[in-house]
């Protein structure tokens, strides 16, 4: 009886609460992120980003329900991906020379591990918890932050990974490109979201360029960091549990000619 209770606790409470609490409380300060702060976007623009985000969230939740039935062992992968996305998206990294701080996104890695739709949902959950309890982002800007970090970060990273693998790129190189391009795409989207809402009578693309250039000194090197991290983790998972990744994105893991014994 005691064993049964312990088993139930382990499988149902700990497995659910630990990542949720982990996501809930891991936040350094409210000032090191791409998150658009509460109240910055006008209501009409906030609503537009909400609509786009909700469409992808609905699809993502449907994919999660379908995949968890089909793929055994997906829950630990979701736990790792969710925790990593949250950890990374609130981890401030000081950038030398530029003298400022920002953070990587984690969603490109999440997209490679669990697919872009599921990664979008995980990113959205992380952003919601940050907005609610950690003074990080905002409820009114949640939709815009989902679109930039969770959605675009996931899909840009996933797309880059698939594309590079199609051209026989080594796993590390493809994952590096995913992290790099996913990170930059996230900040380009944030620039567009801000410019589209705030440009007023001035040029949309002029303001977009100005914001993107302001992000560049911090985010260009952080893209490299995100690429290295993504490449390292994906390579490690591939070496230890290749079947996990091949189940999620089989086309990207077709055997490729390699001179290295044991694969890439």
């Amino acid at each position: 009886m005691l064993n049964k209770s312990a088993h139930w606790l382990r499988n149902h409470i700990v497995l659910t609460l630990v990542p949720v609490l982990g996501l809930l409380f891991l936040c350094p300060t409210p000032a090191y992120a791409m998150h658009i702060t509460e109240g910055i976007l006008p209501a009409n623009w906030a609503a537009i980003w909400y609509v786009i985000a909700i469409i992808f969230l609905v699809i993502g939740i449907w994919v999660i329900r379908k995949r968890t039935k089909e793929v055994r062992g997906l829950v630990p992968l979701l736990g790792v991906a969710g925790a990593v996305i949250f950890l990374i998206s609130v981890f401030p990294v000081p950038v030398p020379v530029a003298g400022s701080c920002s953070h990587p996104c984690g969603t490109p890695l999440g997209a490679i591990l669990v697919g872009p739709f599921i990664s979008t949902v995980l990113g959205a959950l992380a952003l919601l918890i940050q907005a609610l309890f950690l003074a990080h982002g905002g409820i009114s800007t949640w939709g815009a932050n989902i679109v930039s970090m969770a959605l675009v970060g996931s899909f840009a990273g996933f797309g880059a990974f698939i594309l590079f693998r199609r051209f026989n790129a080594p796993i590390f190189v493809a994952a590096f490109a995913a992290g790099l391009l996913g990170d930059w795409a996230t900040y380009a989207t944030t620039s567009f979201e801000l410019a589209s809402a705030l440009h007023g009578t001035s040029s949309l693309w002029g303001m977009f360029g100005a914001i993107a250039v302001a992000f560049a000194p911090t985010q260009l090197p952080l893209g490299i960091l995100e690429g290295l991290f993504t490449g390292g983790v994906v390579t490690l998972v591939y070496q230890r549990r290749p079947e996990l990744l091949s189940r999620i994105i089989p086309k990207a893991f077709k055997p490729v000619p390699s001179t290295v014994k044991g694969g890439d």
Partner: protein
Amino acid sequence: MKSPGKIITTGIVVVFVALAVWGWLALSRQAPEGDEGPWGGVDVNVIEKYAVDAGREPREPFINTDQGDLLLFVFAFGGAVGGFAAGYYWRRLIAEKTERRRDAT
């Protein structure tokens, strides 16, 4: 690395990295400095700066945990719990399976 695909894709990534390093160094002088001063976050130095210039002041969050040492507590506690969560699932995903495989063989 005999495959042309590998050489080309690796070359593309190297070009990206070179451009990123060049852009980082070239644009660093133009990095805006916000109210937080050096090492401020880009959401204050960039996002809030452009928003305020456009007449959109940020609002206080609904639940403001940025008070006194509360945020420091949240960060420390969250670091411990988040690290545990990531490690726990990583072990379930990687280490336990590897051990099972080793035992089976």
